[in-house]
């Protein structure tokens, strides 16, 4: 199982969201797509889910071009609010469960309990933290081959982050899934990653295995990322 982006360019008008990007992801690994806000991370995730389409190049999942149908195998957590405001927590879960055949109700029940969500509450009355948790419940409860998380920690306090990381680790099927986390909070996710991919305003400027980075270069991902950006800016002045 793999995801491949080949020479993908995506523009919004004159602005490049992604410039001739080629990357691939293999199962059994946790990837971090790291970069500042607006650097193209979200676009990359949407392209993989089939929610947006490349202008040039191709995105494929298991050697098939990605389309809307691909969301069957890909659980995607958006950075946006992904709910209907008037729904209750339970209705939200029921809707997601109805659309995705890989939805695991047992997992959902456990996750709900862990995240301490009240299923009778309306989405619009939930706090930001609880909305974030609900998003995670609907995403992680799926036994999908690929899990894409776009800024899963944004706006959440450290305690919530902690419980989210724990749930992630608890429910991930490590041998059979690809987990890709896009975030600008590099330090927070570093210990979770096998590989880090640095993205900077549409360009992939580096890709490294996290432990090798520390062992061979003595750098944390954040330090590495800063070096890359300096080098990149220097070359592109």
């Amino acid at each position: 199982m793999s995801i491949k982006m080949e020479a993908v360019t995506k523009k919004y008008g004159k602005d490049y969201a992604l410039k001739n990007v080629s990357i691939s992801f293999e199962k059994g690994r946790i990837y971090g797509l790291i970069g500042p806000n607006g650097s193209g991370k979200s676009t990359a995730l949407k392209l993989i889910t089939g929610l947006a389409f490349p202008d040039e190049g191709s995105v494929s999942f298991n050697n098939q071009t990605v389309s809307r149908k691909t969301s069957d195998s890909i659980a995607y957590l958006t950075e946006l609010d992904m709910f209907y405001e008037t729904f209750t927590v339970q209705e939200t879960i029921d809707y997601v469960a109805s659309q995705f055949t890989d939805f695991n109700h047992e997992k959902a029940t456990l996750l709900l309990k862990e995240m301490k969500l009240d299923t009778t509450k309306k989405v619009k009355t939930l706090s930001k933290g609880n909305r974030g948790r609900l998003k995670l419940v609907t995403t992680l409860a799926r036994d999908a081959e690929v899990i894409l998380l776009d800024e899963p920690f944004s706006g959440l306090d450290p305690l919530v982050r902690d419980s989210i990381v724990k749930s992630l680790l608890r429910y991930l099927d490590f041998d059979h899934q690809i987990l890709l986390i896009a975030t600008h909070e590099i330090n927070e996710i570093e210990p979770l990653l096998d590989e880090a991919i640095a993205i900077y305003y549409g360009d992939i400027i580096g890709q490294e295995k996290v432990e090798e980075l520390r062992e061979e270069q003595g750098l944390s991902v954040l330090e590495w990322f800063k070096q890359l950006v300096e080098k990149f800016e220097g070359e592109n002045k």
Partner: protein
Amino acid sequence: MSSEFQSSQPIYMQIVDRIIIDILQEKQSLGGKMPSVREMAIKMGVNPNTIQRAYSELERMDIVETRRGQGTFVLENDDLLDQLRDSMQKEFIENYVQKMKEIGASNQQMISQLKRYLKEDE
């Protein structure tokens, strides 16, 4: 995150150190079973592959052994505790000495500062 890690050293090595400290503090008993890789990953908030690597390293150091189908166990080696304590102490002293040298302290100063510090501590 559950644990903070220093930036320069591989995370798996830092986990190895933490487990050794746990053993020294008897939080992890000799001959006792270690948490599974996943449990440990959840506890520390760390990639399971990293934990796996830490366990392998511990195995290589003859601190733990993996029994097929049962899990990972700390070896019931009587000398182990002493050995570990010894090597840990050495490591810390090395660190101390190196740092002191970096700021130009002499061997004499290192000893006297340490003595003074210990007295204050009492």
